């Protein structure tokens, strides 16, 4: 390639500016559309992204609980501290793996879906059509989706954390014979509202990330069926990359304050 590294650096810088600017536009137009938000679409989207995903996240939470009990058990067996397993599993579920794993699955269930649906509407000319009849697609369609998917992901995160703790107690009894009473005792003694709040704060940040990135990806889609798939895949990969980076930043910040 001519120009060598400078060309590559310049290209990446322009691309980065493009992405950041695009996200900024989505945020700004969503905020501006807030007073004119279509409440029916908001409710419909919350049901679509959140309520309909409840069976999935309950299944997800059951597996997370089982996995984390086995994970906690590796150390618990080594140090003979069976009474601590409720705390060890609960801490990792609430603060780290509940939010992180939920968010990564939600990049597919909510992110890919949102990006693909917006991309289909965009490619099918429906967004243009709305503008043509004088309706702001942001107030009617886009902003409600951003808000709804953020709410949905945060709420689903709460469901996951709750169900995963019970699932951990169940698998703890089933696999490594830890009495649920002592499981919840150590959970209750060593964990508090701070841990639950830290997990919820993460979920809100993850939800916002997924919904903004997928919305922007869907809105810039051009092309046919292939483009819809590509946009959905890009939304998934970009948001999961950002999630892991964000996870570190939030974890460090939260452990200072919470």
């Amino acid at each position: 390639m001519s120009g060598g590294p400078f060309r590559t650096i310049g290209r990446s810088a322009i691309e980065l500016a493009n992405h950041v600017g695009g996200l900024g536009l989505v945020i700004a137009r969503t905020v501006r559309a807030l007073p004119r938000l279509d409440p029916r679409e908001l409710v419909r989207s919350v049901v679509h992204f959140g309520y309909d995903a409840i069976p999935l996240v309950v299944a997800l939470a059951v597996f997370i609980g089982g996995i984390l009990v086995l994970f906690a058990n590796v150390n618990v067996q080594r140090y003979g501290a069976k009474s601590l397993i409720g705390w060890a599993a609960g801490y990792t579920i609430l603060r780290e793996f509940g939010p992180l794993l939920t968010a990564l699955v939600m990049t597919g269930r909510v992110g890919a879906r949102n990006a693909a649906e917006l991309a289909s509407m965009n490619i099918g000319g429906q967004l243009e059509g709305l503008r043509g009849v004088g309706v702001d697609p942001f107030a009617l369609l886009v902003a409600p989706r951003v808000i709804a998917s953020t709410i949905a992901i945060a709420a689903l995160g709460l469901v996951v954390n709750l169900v995963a703790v019970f699932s951990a107690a169940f698998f703890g009894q089933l696999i490594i014979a830890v009495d649920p009473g002592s499981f919840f005792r150590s959970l209750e003694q060593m964990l508090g509202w701070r841990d639950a709040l830290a997990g919820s704060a993460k979920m809100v940040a993850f939800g916002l990330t997924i919904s903004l990135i997928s919305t922007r990806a869907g809105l810039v889609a051009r092309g046919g069926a292939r483009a819809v798939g590509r946009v959905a895949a890009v939304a998934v990969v970009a948001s999961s990359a950002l999630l892991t980076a964000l996870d570190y930043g939030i974890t460090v910040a939260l452990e200072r304050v919470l």
Partner: protein
Amino acid sequence: MAVSPLQLAILLGRSTRRALRRGVPRGEIVRQVHEIGFRSLLLVFGGMVFFGAVMTAHGAYQARKVVGDLSIVGPAYFEVLIRELGPTIAGILAAVRIGAAISAEVAAMQVTEQLDALRLSAGDPYAEVAFPRIVGGLIGVPALLVIGTAAATLTTVVVSTYAYGADGTAFMDPTFVDLGDIFAFFAKALGYGLAIPLAAVQSGFSARGGPGAVGAATTTGVVASCMLVLILDLLISALLFYTGL
């Protein structure tokens, strides 16, 4: 959901049988290893670097509360990283990237009738589209998991040394790592490597309709791949726990 274990088993059997009968498409397999393995490397590597740093932050926080010195938990943490966390978090990241890419690509082929065109020209989507992706996953995913776990380990060493002032080398001290842990790692890696492309190809093949169907298939592909990773993780871990490995 459009993906069931029975369908995946049928897909695996049919693809393998037809590919063996028709001759294994070597060139396409190499291309898929590149596509699945190499092109997922950035996400898995970057994600695992941050994950290693996150786990160090959690460890330091807990160490302050309980034991006092971060490096005491090092060797045990290294075992858990190899046995549980490394393969599974890297596996989910790989599932997200590979599941999305394969299901979007195959679904687009399906709805634009390219798969029908392949059949008409005496080709076979099972042998020529599904099989190379399955083998590509079997080779690419374990490689990604090894690199991802190594990245998380090195990040933990560096972060615990420089950010928390502990003896970081404790986090790569293999005292507690035995053959059972290595076996668990590779059992999971191969399981994920098989399951991810199977779920993604299956959801791509089941796409029906217009551009919207491609989006729906991508969603299903990502979600099913991620869920399969978690299900396999729990199954393999529980099995190994019962057999005492």
